[in-house]
């Protein structure tokens, strides 16, 4: 139970970190937290947290496909976020 509460707190912290300065990022990251994050393996969760520390403009270019991450792990998580976004019913 204690672990469940703790996980919930972690998710809420993550959710708040998904509040960004650009609407596009808000929508992409929020959808991913609700629909994709829980199915990530631990290493990818760590990468997702690294991504959240990126400046908004850099994150925007990655998530909108304007640039490609050199790091394979980052590129893979970016792909998963985009995949949730493009498959979510509007």
């Amino acid at each position: 139970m204690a672990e469940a509460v703790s996980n919930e707190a972690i998710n809420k912290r993550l959710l708040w970190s998904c509040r960004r300065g650009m609407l596009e990022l808000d929508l992409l990251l929020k959808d991913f937290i609700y629909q994709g994050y829980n199915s990530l393996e631990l290493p990818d969760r760590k990468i997702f947290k690294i991504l959240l520390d990126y400046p908004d403009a850099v994150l925007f270019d990655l998530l909108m496909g304007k640039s490609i991450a050199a790091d394979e792990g980052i590129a893979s998580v970016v792909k998963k976020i985009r995949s949730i976004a493009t498959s979510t019913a509007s």
Partner: protein
Amino acid sequence: MTITRRKFDALIIGAGGGGLRAALQLARADAKVAVVSKVFPTRSHTVAAQGGVNAALANVSPDNWHFHMFDTIKGSDYLGDQDAIEYMCRAAPKVVYELDHFGVPFSRRDDGNIYQRAFGGQSQDYGGEQAARTCAAADRTGHAILHALYQQNINARTHFFDEFFAIDLIKDKEGYILGAMALEIETGEPILIEAKTTLIATGGAGQLFRTCTNALINTGDGMAMALRAGVPLQDMEFFQFHPTGIAGKGILITEGVRGEGGYLVNADGERFMERYAPRAKDLASRDIVSRAIAIEVREGRGCGPDKDHVFLKLDHIGADIIKKRLPGIRDSAITFAHVDPIESPIPVYPTAHYTMGGIPTNHKGQVVVPEREGPEDPVPGLYAAGECACVSVHGANRLGGNSLLDILVFGRAAANHIIGYLQEHRYHRQMDDDGIDMAMARLARWEQQGEGESVPELRAEFRKVMEDHCGVFREQNNLAIGLEKVTALRQRLQNARIQDQSKIFNTARIEALELENLMDIGIATVASALARTESRGAHSRVDFTERDDTNWLKHSLYFEDGRLDYKPVRLKPMTVAPFPLKPRVY
């Protein structure tokens, strides 16, 4: 309950460009300055400003600050205060060169001077040839400014309260503002920040409307705090809309799409702009296109299962041109509307973009209210700058490139005035319990348990009402019904409950507090729009289609008790002759 207290010379609420520019000025003057921000500072909405900042540097075209002043006054549809506009346009080159020195990587010309691009509404010789006045750091100007200012503030030892949500201003019986109560989001604990001066720099309120371009953080928190502290909100009826946002999402689809030959169709497949603007059609001005879309939807010719949008069709342009000239738009459509515009039309609806109204200030950044001597008495210790403020340089309509300029010039001006104020007010004033109790009551209200309405559902309903009744289609009956509805929703919010009563990162509680703020300023917006029986700038009434300078060349002031008052527009600049009123024709 013991509340943690901290004391500072200056408290800045909001860490966008305006707040950070002010904080830097203060920290460099050795003031003890704190910045409270509900998100990490470099995630403020300033990052979304891609266009640039206006300054008459004359690097690309002949230009001077007086041309810039004329364009800004004309763009404001003559509701802008000419003294504040003069101040801003004269200060513009200085703030841009300062940014250059702070490390903002402005795009350059071959001769090494800052490159300037042309934007709409910029002219040489008072309405003549196109001017190029906008300084940009590629397409990341807001991001570059924010990061440079943040780094400079770290170097200057500004104290940051990251992820703290400001609840309310603290005001004493003599009317002085003594700081604010805030909530640490991580722990859920309140903190009292006492300050000799407080600057509100919390940005705009695009989240008032269901379809908007603004980030989720733009909930007008500072405007609502000011309203609750007895400050009226000025010119809230003026809200800038773009005609084509992705329906239900708000993401902007630029006019460039229609420039490339894209056009709008309704549910019958009719190219309806031919009826509204037979010559310009889909390239008619923003307000005309926006209103046409809203009318099509209102009259039942909207598309989709809920008939709540129209389609922007570009498949006829051809895959090659779309891929070559509109790649960003295609990606936005695929990502957020789940359609590839090469094959299918994009669902669109007018999207709210910029809050021209806000907390009334003078050109020194002081918050001013009609209280003792006249319509503009400063509230001691209180300042505002940027989109949350109404100084008023944008009047009824903001020009592109002037929003970044506004935050920089008036963030800096407010800080300069604060430095003088601190020299005359060396000690903290005694704080009584009343102000603290009010802020704590606002927090405690959301600790009530039991059954009640859902905050997210009320939020969705409220934003839809704002869009339907106070969006781009404004008419007496529709606005009056809207005012009744938002007032009723505000009442219903009293009975809402949040189920999550945890302390740590309780985002449900923050969203409830944000909704209170939104509803308070939503009522101000609808009431002000209902009262103004003319069309001026972004406020466009279908039942009063002309600008009415005889009766409405004045600023609206909405008070928390529902009262509306007005004050004159400042038509006299600081040092030059006034620009006389003219029709706003381009």
